[in-house]
């Protein structure tokens, strides 16, 4: 026990001594003189001060001397002494403007009189020891007050420190000011952002309350703040009482409560509508939402189908064409799929047709971007649907499509046309069945583009023995159909003879030009299956304006050499003849 106590006491003593050793030297008995610091107020001059410490025998003015050395200058062994010891204060050395060099490292030494002892030394550059004086002349002005007279805003203004007034004016010193304020009695100060203006707006001060405001400054880009300025006391009295506003709020609340009570208690719809009008619902033109709620399905579907907006989506011409043309743009894939034969010699016709095709349409797949020069819309729809169908319209396995469509103006007989009812997803064109079927023909010409890089669409021509002769791709399926059947379309293995007339009429888009030029058909069916001669013409070629040159029935055609082979204007062309016809 005694040892423990002794150990404890010994530990305390050691601790005490150790603490004494670590404690700062301020309260030591023998405190050597030291430099308290060097300060500049305006970055033009500075002064250094020191303390004698606890040495009692250094009371003479020059017992301690200050020497300085400017780095990078002629570093001689002899350090110059302080240029001027301060007159007003003791233990201070002032460096005037001549001896102050900014941006240059200074070394200051505190030495004894005989310079043998160096008590202290500091190293600094002047711009880093700039501590400005605090700003002066704090003043405030009233800015505004809120409606409730509870909160107010003021503007506080001040002057830069007078010791640095010139430097601040010149711009040598760029000062930043920081404003702080607090309610009298509060412990913490609210700090506002520092900026370079000599005024600051303080918002949200309460009326009838004491506030304290103070400002301090520092050089912009440096970290040494000045002392705080004198504290400014403000108190803004509220002139009006706040009763009316509160009463207004209370009354409004009471009014709302009364209305709410009325509505709830009486539950009258009229009252509710007047006081709380319902939110109007969306209005769709032509559609009555009531119908949705209690209408019948048939009514609904009829409305939907007949509605203009919806219908146009269904029967939008562009979508048809776009859709079809997309298929056509890939001729390589569709080529293999096609089972119908190519019934025209592509070498002969490709030049013409592709020429025509190129002029017909661009790379754009939409109809809107294509040049459709003169075609009226409904006819074009049918026509194009036939012409541009890439996949097997004429596929024998396809659903029965019985019609073919010429332009009305070509033949003049509406019976020759079939309306395309639908284009399936696979690209097949579904035609509506036609009552009079003896004149049906499908005119679909398919051109394999050989010379061009842009096969815009493929057209197929079917159904003729003539055409068979021209096919470069004999497709067994269709060829047999062609051969076996009476030149009818392969898609309609019916007994309709579509004749072997030279129906290589290119479906031109210059239909008005074509129409007047067409004479009555050149060819008629070889057999008498057709009741009336078909009105077809043979296209001889295209002229420079990309219009089709159709051969008239009279034997006055450019290729008159071939014409003489024709038995008659209304005869048909034999395969041999057809071969020799140049497009």
């Amino acid at each position, binding site marked *: 026990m005694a040892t423990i106590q002794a150990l404890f006491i010994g530990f305390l003593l050691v601790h005490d001594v150790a603490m004494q050793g670590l404690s700062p030297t301020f309260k030591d008995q023998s405190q050597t003189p030291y430099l308290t610091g060097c300060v500049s107020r305006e970055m*033009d001059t500075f002064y250094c001060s020191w303390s004698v410490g606890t040495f009692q025998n250094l009371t003479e003015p020059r017992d301690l001397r200050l020497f300085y050395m400017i780095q990078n200058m002629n570093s001689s062994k002899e350090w110059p002494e302080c240029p001027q010891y301060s007159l007003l204060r003791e233990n201070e050395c002032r460096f005037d403007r001549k001896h102050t060099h900014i941006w240059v490292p200074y070394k200051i030494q505190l030495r004894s009189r005989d310079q043998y002892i160096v008590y202290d030394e500091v190293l600094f550059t002047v*711009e880093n020891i700039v501590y400005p004086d605090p700003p002066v002349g704090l003043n405030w002005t009233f800015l505004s007050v809120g409606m409730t007279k509870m909160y107010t805003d003021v503007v506080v203004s001040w002057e830069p420190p007078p010791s640095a007034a010139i430097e601040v004016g010149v711009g*040598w010193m760029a000062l930043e000011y920081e404003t702080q304020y607090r309610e009298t009695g509060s412990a913490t100060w609210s700090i506002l952002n520092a900026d370079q203006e000599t005024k600051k707006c303080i918002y949200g001060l309460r009326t009838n309350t004491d506030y304290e405001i103070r400002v301090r400054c520092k050089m912009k880009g440096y970290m040494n703040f000045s002392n705080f300025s004198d504290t400014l006391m403000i108190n803004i009295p509220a002139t009006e009482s706040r009763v009316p506003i509160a009463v207004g709020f209370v009354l409004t609340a009471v009014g709302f409560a009364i209305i709410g009570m009325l509505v709830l208690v009486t539950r009258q719809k009229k009252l509710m509508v007047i006081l709380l009008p319902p939110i109007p619902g969306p209005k769709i033109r032509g559609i009555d939402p009531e119908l949705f709620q209690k209408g019948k399905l048939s009514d609904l579907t009829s409305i939907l189908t007949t509605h203009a907006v919806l219908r146009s989506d269904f029967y939008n011409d562009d979508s048809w064409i776009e859709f079809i043309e997309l298929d056509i743009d890939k001729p390589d894939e569709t080529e293999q799929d096609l089972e119908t034969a190519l019934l025209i010699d592509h070498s002969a016709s490709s030049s013409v047709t592709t020429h025509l095709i190129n002029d017909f349409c661009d790379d754009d797949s939409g109809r809107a971007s294509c040049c459709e020069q003169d075609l009226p819309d409904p006819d074009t729809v049918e026509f194009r649907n036939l012409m541009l169908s890439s996949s097997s319209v004429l596929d024998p396995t396809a659903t029965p499509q019985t019609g073919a469509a010429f332009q009305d103006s070509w033949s003049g007989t509406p019976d020759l046309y079939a309306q395309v009812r639908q284009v399936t997803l696979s690209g097949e064109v579904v035609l509506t069945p036609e009552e009079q079927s003896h004149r049906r023909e499908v005119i679909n010409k398919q051109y394999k583009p050989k010379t061009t890089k842009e096969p815009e669409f493929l057209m197929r021509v079917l159904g003729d023995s003539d055409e068979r002769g021209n096919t470069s791709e004999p497709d067994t399926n269709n060829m047999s159909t062609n051969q076996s059947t009476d030149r009818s379309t392969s898609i309609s293995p019916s007994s309709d003879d579509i004749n072997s007339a030279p129906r290589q009429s290119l479906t031109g888009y210059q239909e008005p030009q074509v129409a007047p030029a067409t004479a009555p058909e050149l060819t008629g069916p070889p057999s008498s299956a057709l009741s009336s001669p078909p009105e077809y013409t043979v296209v001889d070629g295209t002229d420079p304006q990309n219009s089709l040159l159709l051969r008239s029935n009279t034997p006055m055609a450019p290729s008159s050499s071939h014409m003489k082979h024709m038995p008659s204007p209304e005869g048909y062309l034999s395969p041999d003849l057809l071969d020799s016809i140049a497009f």
Partner: protein
Amino acid sequence: MSCGKKQVFFVLVALGLLDLHARVCSAPICASGQVGCHVLSLSNLFDRVIQHSARVHGLSSHLHADFEHNSSPSRNHIGRVFPRCHTSNILTPNGKENAQKLAREELTEVILKLLMAWKEPLGQLHHSMALERDVFNSVNSNKALDMRDMMHELRKGVETVVEKMQHLGMISNSVSSVASSPDSFLSSADNGQPQAQAQSQAQAETQAEALDHHMLLFCFRRDSNKVQNYLKILKCRIVPEHGC
């Protein structure tokens, strides 16, 4: 609308837009007498340049403070070493009075020299800061990049101001765009303090990079302050206003 017409139309529109764009982008400096051209006064130009130099100095101070904060706390005042900067051989006025006594042309030349001297080192500073991830985070290396760009803009601004001053005849045309080759800042060594040299030699290899950064940041902070203050003095001399 035909395809051809549409194409032509679009091409024309595109050309028109291009032309407009070219005209907007290549707007030249206002020739005298040009109508509708807003000419900046010399005072405005000076204000802008001074504002820009203040920004540069603020950024350099931040970087230096960050570096001091992050680096080893052994840098107290006693053992502190003030590096010798690569711009130390440029004679600069070391006080307000000296700067005010200097001739306009000389002051302008000093400013330009300082700006040119920092062209290359700032780029290298950014690179070396980016390499040292442990000392500098990405924020600081981005700040170094900003500093480099801002100094470039400041240089351009000061050159514009000098041109304008020459144009207005305020300074003689002897102030050429100083394309001084900056002294190789890598070869500057600490001198004047024996203990500093011993210290640097002892720690040279291990703290070479850090020392370079410290020196660069310290020197750049000092030089940016110089540039800012010289510009202010020059403005007061050229465009006299109240308070100068």
